[in-house]
């Protein structure tokens, strides 16, 4: 795993400390810490070498969705800057808004997931590499909603294809999907190919995987 330079924003000192501990344990370097949305914005300007930003959602000054707003501001100034948002509470409406202006290099996870250090580590790496990570909790909900909404593009997917799309959205690789579903790599590849076809995603349009995951997000 390659070490990364991280800016961390979290208003609870206790949790900030815990997160720094985990991140250092994983070999990353926390180059700046912030406890408010404004401090985060300032820290990003002061540290141009930052590779990933990890931020809490509910922070001063408004104790509302300050972290999400700060993330949007940062992405406007620095397009493509990888940002992983951690939240005590995830709403589908927040997720839709957060991913609405392009999703590559963005992640949105429940704070609970941090406890699974490997999963957390993978999420950080994926976001840093331009991938997209959406909390399984939100994904499941959005999937069932989209699949049952008349006129949705996801309506044409089979149960199995939906299941695989869901795992993809959770950030799993083909290999991990194989292990999870006890199927061969050929089967997974075939299903994923079908998903791409049915959603009309041509092979030459860049990151198809991410766009497949986001297909349903954009429909709402």
């Amino acid at each position, binding site marked *: 795993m390659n070490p990364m330079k991280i800016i961390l924003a979290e208003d*609870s000192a*206790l*949790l900030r400390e815990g997160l720094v501990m985990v991140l250092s344990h994983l070999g990353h370097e926390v180059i700046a810490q912030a406890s408010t949305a404004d401090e985060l914005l300032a820290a990003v300007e002061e540290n141009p070498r930052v590779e990933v930003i990890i931020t809490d959602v509910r922070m001063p000054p408004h104790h509302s*969705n300050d972290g999400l707003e700060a993330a949007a501001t940062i992405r406007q100034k620095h397009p493509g800057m990888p940002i992983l948002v951690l939240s*005590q509470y995830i*709403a589908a*409406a927040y997720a839709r808004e957060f991913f609405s202006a392009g999703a590559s290099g963005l992640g949105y996870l429940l704070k*609970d997931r941090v*406890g699974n250090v490997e999963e957390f580590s993978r999420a950080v790496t994926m976001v840093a590499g331009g991938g997209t990570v959406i909390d399984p909790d939100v994904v499941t909900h959005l999937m*069932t909603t989209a699949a049952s909404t008349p006129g949705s593009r996801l309506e044409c997917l089979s149960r199995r294809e939906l299941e695989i799309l869901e795992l993809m959205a959770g950030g799993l690789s083909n290999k991990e999907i194989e292990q999870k579903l006890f199927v061969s790599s050929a089967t997974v590849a075939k299903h994923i190919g079908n998903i791409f076809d049915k959603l009309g995603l041509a092979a030459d349009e860049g990151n198809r995987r991410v766009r497949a995951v986001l297909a349903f997000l954009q429909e709402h």
Partner: protein
Amino acid sequence: MNMTQTLSSDVDAAGAASVAQTGARRLDSWEEPPTTLWRQLRSPLFLLTKAPWIALLHLVILSVVPGVAVAITSTIVGILFLPLLAIGYAVFERWRLTQLGYSTRDNHVAMNRNNLWEWAKFRYQETATWREVGALLVAIILGSVAGLVLTFEIILFVLAIGTMIWLINGGTLTSWGIYSNGLESWQITQAEFARSNEKLLLALPDLHQGTWWIPLLAALVMLPIFAYINGILAAASGSLSHVILQPRPEEYEKQLARLSASRSTIVDSFESERRRIERDLHDGVQQELVNINLRLGLAEMEAKRLGQEGANATLIQEQVAGAREQLAHALETLRNTVRGIYPAVLETHGLGAALEELSRNTLTPVYVSYLVNERLAPEVERTAYYVASEGVANALKHSGAHEIKLEAYTARSMLVLTVEDNGTGGASLAGGSGLAGLTERVAALGGQLTVFSPAGGPTRLRMELPSL
């Protein structure tokens, strides 16, 4: 696997519009032109319908009002209860008006009667109440008139029939008529009793055994005349009452604003209390649990590393994994609780988004249909959310339902929210249910909460709240 399904907030506008119109029609219906007694009076078939009898019945009822009202309010203390009596009378009067063909509607601001003192205090300050006092006073006057008219009618009728019986039994009445002294006074009498200065104005036919049918004919002529008199009187009293009691929407709105202001303390304290609890949970126990989760995660990793180095760490790994699982469950439960107390998404993204969250993480599917296009006032959205949240929680806990339907739409500046399940029913607003507290809150905002839940189900919870 989450089985929840949700219709998203941006359902097609046509659907929203049609629902809104249905609602509007229903609320409008009281303004439709009624088939009043006046219209029936104009009909040539008036005498053949039941209208004259209804009019008679209403006059009889109306003539009782003065006696009862005066009896109750004749004491010094009793007069203080006049407005309350008027409110009760108005309920009756509105019923009477519907019988006469008018559509009526209560113009009082809806409130619950948990606190009778608060209720009475507000009612005494309401214009609608004092209009009802006016209606009662008018009814006392009209009731007296109705009493006199009815008495007069009864006397005339009994006199005619009595005369007939008297004639059949051999009575006679001869050389009689209307005598007058040429000035203002006149009398019906026999020639022998007329005073010297009086002259015969109109001679009336001699009455004896052979002409017994004359008073009977007179009685039969009287009846339709009485029917019209009664009809006109009843219709006039109805129209007058209707004009006095007719709802004034602008007045209603003003009262409502005043009520909201005077009760805002309740809502405010309710709100700040919830906000405080949510904040305490978020800043305190939630953060600590997340941090414990994080430390356990590190311990798990360490144990794994030890295992890989050849140490026997299986037991530690199992214990830590078990603890993390339990902790994940605790966090999940806590998150659901917090969501019910004060959901952040409600503030930022409105009721639709919050209801969508409510429908998540339930094993029983909750179908949400949200047909409101704009953001509503914060206290309206919050109240609606709490009602929905409590309603869904009750359905999940007690009803044994297989599915729950959650619907919200606006019609005629009212937000209507219904929670419907296909469970076993038997729910009520009384007692320790969380809904009891919400009734107060809904009432404080001028709305009302009703539960329809017969034993055996289904249960339908309905909230109507002014969305202004």
